[in-house]
């Protein structure tokens, strides 16, 4: 492996560790957005949740965390459907969103 490739691999490992370490706090934050959204119907919280899930979805696979990325992607799709008004008050959708976040916690 060349020096450049070594440096890239080390960088990936380092950033991946940081990403993983930050995940519990981020998932707490996302869960809080979800609760706020459900409780107050606050669209801004919904947008923040969607953005957070999208962000994790986009990055997780790069850091070798495919299952986390898949769960975030599932959550993102659900949040988008609710935000778009396709499932505005459908209990199973909210519940599935909770499940997606809990699933991410377990990974």
């Amino acid at each position, binding site marked *: 492996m060349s020096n450049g490739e070594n440096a890239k691999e080390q960088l990936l490992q380092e950033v*991946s560790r*940081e*990403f993983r370490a930050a995940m519990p706090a981020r998932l707490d934050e996302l869960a809080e957005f979800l609760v706020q959204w459900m409780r107050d119907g606050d669209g801004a919280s919904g947008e923040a949740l969607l953005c957070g899930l999208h*962000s994790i979805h*986009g990055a997780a696979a*790069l*850091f070798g965390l495919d299952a986390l*990325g898949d769960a975030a992607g599932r959550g993102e799709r659900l949040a988008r459907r609710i935000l778009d008004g396709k499932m505005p008050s459908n209990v199973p959708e909210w519940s599935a969103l909770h499940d997606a976040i809990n699933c991410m916690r377990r990974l």
Partner: protein
Amino acid sequence: MPDPSPVSILDSDLFAVTFHGNRELQRADTRLSLLALKLLVLIDGKADFATIRERSSRFASGEELADGMRELLKGGYADYSSRLVMEPDNLIDFFSGDANEPPAQALKDAHEEAITGVTTLQQDGYYVRIAMPPAERLRQHSRDRVLIIEDEPSLAKFLRQFLEIEGFTAATASNREEIVAQLRRVPPPDLVLLDVMLPDADGFNILFKMREHPALRDVPVLMLTAKATRESVLKGLAGGANGYITKPFQTDNLIAAIRTVLGRRDDPFVQRALAP
């Protein structure tokens, strides 16, 4: 008509009024000469030098035109549009309200290409338009400057350091304030990697606003998108994106897309595109 070369202006040079110039246009007690003021009005709305020369021929000789342009440039009332930065008034406008959506004709024109784009995104993870950048971009910079607009901190950090290992100079911006600060820098970045979904901004809106801005309209933009839908590709193509990269992306694809859009001749993709 005397040659206006003392101010080193080419007919193709594009000028725009600066923030300072705009304020001067609105003042009742401007200190500009009448000629410079007339020229400033001609430049307002952006104009190339050939157009300014033609329009000013009724009231100014070539020598007077050169004097007037020198007064405006030296006083900071107008500048080459390529050197213009985002100015305070424009900054507010940059993020206020929605940008103009691509015109219907642009969407129609991009229709066929969007199908190719979606297919390529699904197959290769990236798609760039085969539209070669301006000639000056083909000159070898020591390090091309890439602005990464990405809100995921780990990903932004990774991208910045990865691009630096690959020989680029990279900067990151994750929110409106940082985006504006980075886009105001002179000269503008050589390329922007633009996430579509940001906490307080929309990537497509940023793209549309960039394409409307005189100092940023020629900066190549690669969209980073988690979804390779025809709708999003069509919107980006019609709005002037130079390419797409899907998330999660392969680092090799990212580098290939960047080098292609920058027109690096050593890139195999560019060599194929340039081949007779």
